[in-house]
């Protein structure tokens, strides 16, 4: 990946609540806000943090499957719906399954780098609670190759990652591995309780370790090697942020102290028609993380916090190994030892990640960027961690499908 030819910043981030089971407001039997509500809430909240919507040059919207979840396509048409001053401006929608949000960031970044825009409104959205999970599983299976759907599990993606977990158990031991997965779950829930927009914010379970032990994988009802506690949520939500050049920040009236610079990035694709070569390795994440770090001229020891794509707890563990914090097979130990907890060596997913905060699929990539922006600009409220001045960088890893579409970005507080 080429180095950035100019400085690009993110600012004015916003996350809606991640709505779904776990939130007391959520009632599956009652009518709920639609796709347009979430887009508007997030977009307007970002616009509120700038001087004038008229100064936004274009909009990008990341979304995975509104065409099926909401029977809605042509999402760029919702950008002017956010604010009338965005009427007649360019807008585009991008899709890369659960990596759609990351692709939206990349698209905004490229516009700024190409100097076709100084300020881009980047938004991600997904509203998935329009159908029961058993039918939602069909929709989400679109992140895999359609020819593999027939042989796949009823819960297709839990099935895919259950296979990865099974391979990990076989190689390194099930009890050992599940200790790591358990700690991953506990961290996620504890962090989510610190973030008012998190789906698990209201979680009250007193002994999370005990709760995790109560659930055992059961292939007759779900998948062979994971339980529901190992899975991310079915979520409705949107996130938005401004992507801007230096000139863009000035134009929007954003103080640099409220902005974060993107210092490196990578976007890597794996052939979707191929099975992963090694189930215990997330090779696309590995390549993306390395390329992003290389493009910034950094190593993992420079990172102070990470938001990684834990659609399943096993993806969290394998992600830790792929980024390079642990040797293959040692990720479970690294996590179980508390090194990824908010007070650990490398705090990961400080507001709960996909398991604790939620996973509105097309919004997740943007949500991760907003979270890093909050942490680096000290806007994370109760979830704020202390950023070590010697390790001032943040990283996001957003994944679409089973290690197919991966976007990695490196951030630093603007100077």
């Amino acid at each position, binding site marked *: 990946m080429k180095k950035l030819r100019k400085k690009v910043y993110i600012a004015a981030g916003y996350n809606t609540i991640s709505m779904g089971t776990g939130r007391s407001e959520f009632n599956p039997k009652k009518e709920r806000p639609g796709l347009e509500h979430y887009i508007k809430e997030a977009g307007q909240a970002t616009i509120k943090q700038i001087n004038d919507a008229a100064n936004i040059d274009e909009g990008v919207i990341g979304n995975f499957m509104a065409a099926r979840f909401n029977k809605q396509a042509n999402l760029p048409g919702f950008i002017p719906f956010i604010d009338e001053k965005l009427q007649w401006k360019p807008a585009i929608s991008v899709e890369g399954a659960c990596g759609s949000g990351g692709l939206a960031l990349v698209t905004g970044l490229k516009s700024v780098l190409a100097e076709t825009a100084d300020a881009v409104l980047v938004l991600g959205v997904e509203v998935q609670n329009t159908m*029961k999970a*058993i039918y939602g599983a*069909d929709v989400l*299976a679109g992140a895999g190759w359609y020819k593999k*759907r027939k042989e796949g*599990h*009823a819960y297709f993606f839990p099935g895919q990652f259950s296979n990865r977990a099974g391979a990990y158990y076989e190689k390194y031991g099930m009890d050992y591995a599940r200790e790591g997965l358990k700690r991953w779950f506990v961290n996620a829930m504890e962090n989510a309780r610190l973030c008012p927009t998190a789906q698990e914010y209201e979680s009250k379970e007193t002994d999370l370790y005990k709760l995790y032990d109560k659930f055992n994988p059961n*292939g007759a*009802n779900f998948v062979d090697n994971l339980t529901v506690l190992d899975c991310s949520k079915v979520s409705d939500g949107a996130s938005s942020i401004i992507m801007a050049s230096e000139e863009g920040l000035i134009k929007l009236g954003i103080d640099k102290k409220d902005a974060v610079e993107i210092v490196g990035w990578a976007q890597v694709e794996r052939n979707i028609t191929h099975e992963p070569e090694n189930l215990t390795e997330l090779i696309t994440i590995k390549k993306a993380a390395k390329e992003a770090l290389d493009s910034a001229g950094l190593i993992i020891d420079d990172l102070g916090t990470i938001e990684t794509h834990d659609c399943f707890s096993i993806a969290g563990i394998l992600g830790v190994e792929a980024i390079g914090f642990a040797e293959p097979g040692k990720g479970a130990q690294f996590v179980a030892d508390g090194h990824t907890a908010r007070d650990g060596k490398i705090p990961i997913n400080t507001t709960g990640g996909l398991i604790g905060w939620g996973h509105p699929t097309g919004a997740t990539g943007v949500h991760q960027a907003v979270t890093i922006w909050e942490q680096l600009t000290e806007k994370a409220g109760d979830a704020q961690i202390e950023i070590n001045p010697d390790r001032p960088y943040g990283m996001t890893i957003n994944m679409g499908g089973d290690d197919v579409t991966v976007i990695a970005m490196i951030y630093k507080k603007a100077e």
Partner: protein
Amino acid sequence: MNYEERLRNVTVMGAAGKMGSGILLLTAIEMADLSLQPENKGKPFCLNAMDLSQEGLAGLLKYLKVQVTKIAEKKIVLLRKMYEDRTDLIENKDMIDQYVFDVISVVRPTIKIESAYESNLIFEAVSENKDLKIKLLSQIDQNNSNSPWFFTNTSSVPINLINDGAKLNGRILGFHFYNPPAVQKLVEVILPNKPANGMEEFAKTYAKNLKKIVVPSNDYAGFIGNGHFMRDALYGITQMNQLTKEYSFTESVYLINKVSQDYLVRPMGIFQLIDYVGIDVVQFIMNVMNPFLKDEDLHSDLLDQMIELGVKGGQHSNGSQKDGFLKYEKGKPVAIYNPKTKAYETIAAFQKKCDIALGKHPNPRVSWKSVIRRKDKNEVFLEFFSTMKSMSDMGAKIGMKYGKRSNEIGRKLVTDHVANSEADVNTVMLTGFFHAYGPINDYFVF
């Protein structure tokens, strides 16, 4: 005739009724699952849904569609295996829709009794009328050359009486589902004196496949479940009558209903349970049972009076509770019927007075909902009822007496040989009535 052959042609009589529709649903699922097995491909499976009501049958198909869809959603992991060879079925939704179609395809709605003349198995779920049952079963048996087996869902009529009346030579068995059959796990199985060969084994396999818990009961009117419930209900009514010396009728109903729920830690109070089952059904079952009982009069003038006044309880077709002794709003009791004024009186008007009269509750944190899933229920109840025993408050005293009576009823079902064991009595009350503890226990021993 093996299990699968027996289930190739089945009739459910009274299929549009509350019990019949549930029995039809479960049987349709079982038959469809058999038909989908590779070795049965191409073999016809026929389930006659027989009912006199055309309107009922139309509603039945809608009910089946909704229920089978729910069942299919739950067993999707299995369905994906069942439809493994169907290359046209890719997504979960494809398979769920196909399964709903396959199950409903087994069902033949009909108003003609002649449909049962070719069946190997007939489920009878018509009203609790001995003579009607005998007439229908006899007619089918005389016109059916397959020597069919008859499974009756009667909850009160002795099986041998039907067997003898319809001259079935032991080809009848009591297969008593609890309401609603699709949800309740319990089935009481009652054999005639000389059961046909293989019938009991078939019944057990069928129950097992339906994931039901079988409790054998001996052939005494009411069997175990109603044997307990009817006497328990009559005791509640009697105690309520006692209280009317000091309290108004509606206050007395409130007091006994509250004690039988909160102090006995049951899912609902006794008057709410009578409403749930239906005041008319309770009256009817008592009338069926009473002639067979010695030294006991299982009859309530109050129930007769309520029926005369047209207050019947029971459920609406959507499953919501009809008003009976109690009036319900969003499923919760809000008023109580006064037969003298023929009007409901709001509970809120006398609730406080009654609650004060009942005195302290042994432990307000112990409720049916809070303990039903606890593994240490026995310890909780030992402490709870021990506290209750030491209390002199009115509610505690009535509760202890009520629990003791329930205990006596349970034990008598064993000594009268209705049930084979104390465990069977407890299983029926735990699974069929969702009690949190069996009536035969040590909590109420003085």
